[in-house]
């Protein structure tokens, strides 16, 4: 007769406790990675805290008028960022309205239409655009583009001057001798240079997302008789919607902070205006770059306060971008 081996009462047989705690090498790895990850947060937070701390005396001194005052005359004790903020937004909007369609169509062409051989060349060319230093874009904009941009501005003013956006004060686009300097050094010219810097970034993000479109669905669309454009419209674009918005918003974030090219092209003036074709304007970052060198202590605080506001705005734009991208997760549109 056989008997089952008796349970030895003394030995306690229980399943091994499962611990989610990493031990040994794993623990070291996890902790070091966590520290590295946390540094990013610490640095970003530190920038914010530093700027806020430096900005405090200015904000306390000028109060709300810091946000409503247009002129920046520290020597007359009048300091405000209303003009530079609108300028920043205008330049960024001009840049985006140029860069967005370009980036979108470039990304679509590269991922969907381009032959394999050209594809890699195009990709590296677009990446090369991102590698061109900002000062080069500034010089390019100043010497090569601005004369033609001014002509375009005249044309826009002549034909669309009734739109407040395209209006130019103190200049007659129909005059026999057009006062071309009223159309140069404008936010529009600066926006073109900034657009060239924004484009590669937006394009790279969009291209990445488009290339992740499930090939099965693309082929299915083609098999059902869709043209290539029909396939793109019904599959690629809905799938990549998150990437398109994300790329645009990332580009917007960069456009808001672009400095040297704007500093070079834009003739600084401090007035709240949306007339992008007209000479003059200023952005927060170019104001800081232009005035930083000869700023006294209180002026520096005022500049940093302006920087703090820009920091918050950029943070907001990027957060909204992240939220939009998360909400409309890539491919959501195709999963019916």
């Amino acid at each position, binding site marked *: 007769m056989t008997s089952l081996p008796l349970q030895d009462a003394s030995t306690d047989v229980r399943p091994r406790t499962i611990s989610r705690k990493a031990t040994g090498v794993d623990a070291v790895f996890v902790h070091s990675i966590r520290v590295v990850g946390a540094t990013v947060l610490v640095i970003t937070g530190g920038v914010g805290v530093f700027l806020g701390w430096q900005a405090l005396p200015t904000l306390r001194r000028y109060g709300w008028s810091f946000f409503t005052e247009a002129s920046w005359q520290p020597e007359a004790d009048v300091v405000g960022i209303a003009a530079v903020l609108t300028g920043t937004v205008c330049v960024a909007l001009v840049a985006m309205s140029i860069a967005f369609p370009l980036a979108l169509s470039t990304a679509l062409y590269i991922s969907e239409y381009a032959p394999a051989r050209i594809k890699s060349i195009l990709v590296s060319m677009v990446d090369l655009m991102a590698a061109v230093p900002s000062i080069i874009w500034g010089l390019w904009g100043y010497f090569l583009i601005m004369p033609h941009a*001014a002509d375009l501005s005249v044309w826009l003013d002549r034909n669309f001057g009734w739109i407040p956006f395209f209006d130019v004060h103190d200049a007659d686009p129909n005059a026999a001798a057009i*006062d071309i300097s009223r159309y140069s050094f404008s936010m529009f010219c600066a926006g073109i240079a900034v657009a060239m810097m924004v484009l590669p970034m937006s394009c790279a993000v969009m291209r990445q997302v488009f290339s992740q479109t499930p090939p099965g669905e693309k082929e299915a669309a083609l098999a059902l008789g869709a043209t290539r454009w029909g396939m793109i419209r019904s599959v690629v674009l809905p799938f990549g919607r998150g990437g398109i918005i994300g790329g645009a918003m990332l580009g917007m974030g960069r456009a808001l902070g672009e400095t040297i090219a704007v500093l070079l092209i834009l*003739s600084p003036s401090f007035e709240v205006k949306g007339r992008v074709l007209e*000479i003059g304007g200023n952005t927060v970052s170019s104001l800081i770059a232009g005035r930083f060198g000869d*700023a*006294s202590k209180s002026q520096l605080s005022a500049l940093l306060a302006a920087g703090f506001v820009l920091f918050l705005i950029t943070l907001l734009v990027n957060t909204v971008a992240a939220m939009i991208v998360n909400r409309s997760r890539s491919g959501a549109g195709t999963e019916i």
Partner: protein
Amino acid sequence: MIARASRTLRAVVTFLMALGCIAALPGAASATVYAQIEGTGSTWSELIVQQWIADVDANGMKVVYTGGGSTKGRKDFAQGSTDFAISEIPYQGVDEQGQADTSNGRDFAYLPIVAGGTAFTYQLKIGNELVRNLRLSGETIAKIFTDKITNWNDPAITKDNNGRKFPSLPIKPVVRSDGSGTTAQFTTWMDHEYPSIWRPYFGQSGLTSYYPKHGGLMISQAGSDQVMNTIKGYAGNGTIGYVEYSYPVNADYPVVKVLNKAGYFVEPTQYNTAVALTKAKINQDKNSQMYLTQILDGVYTNPDPRAYPISSYSYMIIPTGKDDPRMTTAKRQTLADFLYYSLCSGQTKAGPYGYSPLPLNLVQAGFDQIAKLKKADSAVDLTDRDVRSCNNPTFDGKNLNHNVLADIAPQPAACDKIGEGPCGTATGTSTDGGGEGDGTTGGSGTTGTTGGTGGTGGTGGTADGGTGSAPGAIDPATGAVVGGDPGTTTSGDAIYASPTELVAERTGDKSAFGWLAVLELLALILLPGFFVIALRRRRPSGHGGRP
């Protein structure tokens, strides 16, 4: 001819002496150790400083200079981030806002390095021809830069140019957007000479380093070079800006001849600047922090017919503290030798570059200031560096009390007198005289130039071409220029006869016709629809009426 020969001779001699000086320096260099020194500041004097830096580089002296404006220079020096600074105005003690503008306790001394005139350069085209001989009085300039005179056809400008008319074109003053010593010099002059124009505009009295911009057509740009770029740029027609004379000279652009107290319109050449500055008062109180800084009241009102009113000096600010944290023996030696070269041989280059050499008293005082470097550090070697061996073009070694330059400065031409002329000679450079008088067709008001085949102004042009090698040297009044002048004036008048501008439409028309066009467009789209609807409505009623 004799004058020219002697001038060439002098040039050769100075060149040889400069060579000797440079040849002598390596001996000192082998004995001493140099270290790189860095400075920031004025863009007013940047061009000549960069030239000096290039010159001394061969002797092993490494000097790095970056412009950025006088205000930045003073600030950087005060923060101890540079070894020297260059500024047009001294530390102001307290700036307009009540902020400190001091050296933060760093010991320093002012040292004049170069003189020059703040010039007004402009781009004004008639047809396609650049005007090169504009003349303006100080009052007109002050009014232009305070938005009181806003068009080139203003009667005040016509009056300054003895009746010569300019086209109806808005004046766009180009000013500095950064803290600038040039702005400070210019506003000092306006505040002193035309307080009734300047002070209401500025809202207070005194000078400022930041030009106040009240909308209008004013364009602001950072740095002298950007101002120059804007004026000579494709969109520069109608602009006028203030920069050191060297910028328009290098860019081959004209400058305004400014009216002086004697009633002559003069250009800021090295001679006219030197003459004007003979009336500059220098703070001689050696114990004052402002020792050697300038008091220019006498310069603005100098009664000499050759004097350019807005002349001034530029200063270097050097650290003289014993335990200055940035300075070492090698650095002090480099600074001393660099300054020795700048004050002596380097000054020979001032004229051709559009500056004016320093007179003797300032060079001498400069040496006293350099000696402070040795006082701070006895290891600094200053042997063989004194005024006698100094090769400065404003004085000869024998008679140290004479400003040679002021002696040989030519008298202004008769056509430059108020109520005469205007002269046909070009300003800024002397490559092509009388260009604007060429080939006029007379009275048509159109371009009418014939590719520069010198008409009446040709004589003036050739006279100028002879001395064209030295751009700063104005051609002395020759009979040819004066003789050729009435011709230019009359033909010139013909061009500018009636610069009337015709407006494309009446002002009230635009919006009215715009709305009409919109209405018509709407009607074009909507009326057929309404018509169809009306027809359909009628038809059912017609059907209903039949049975």
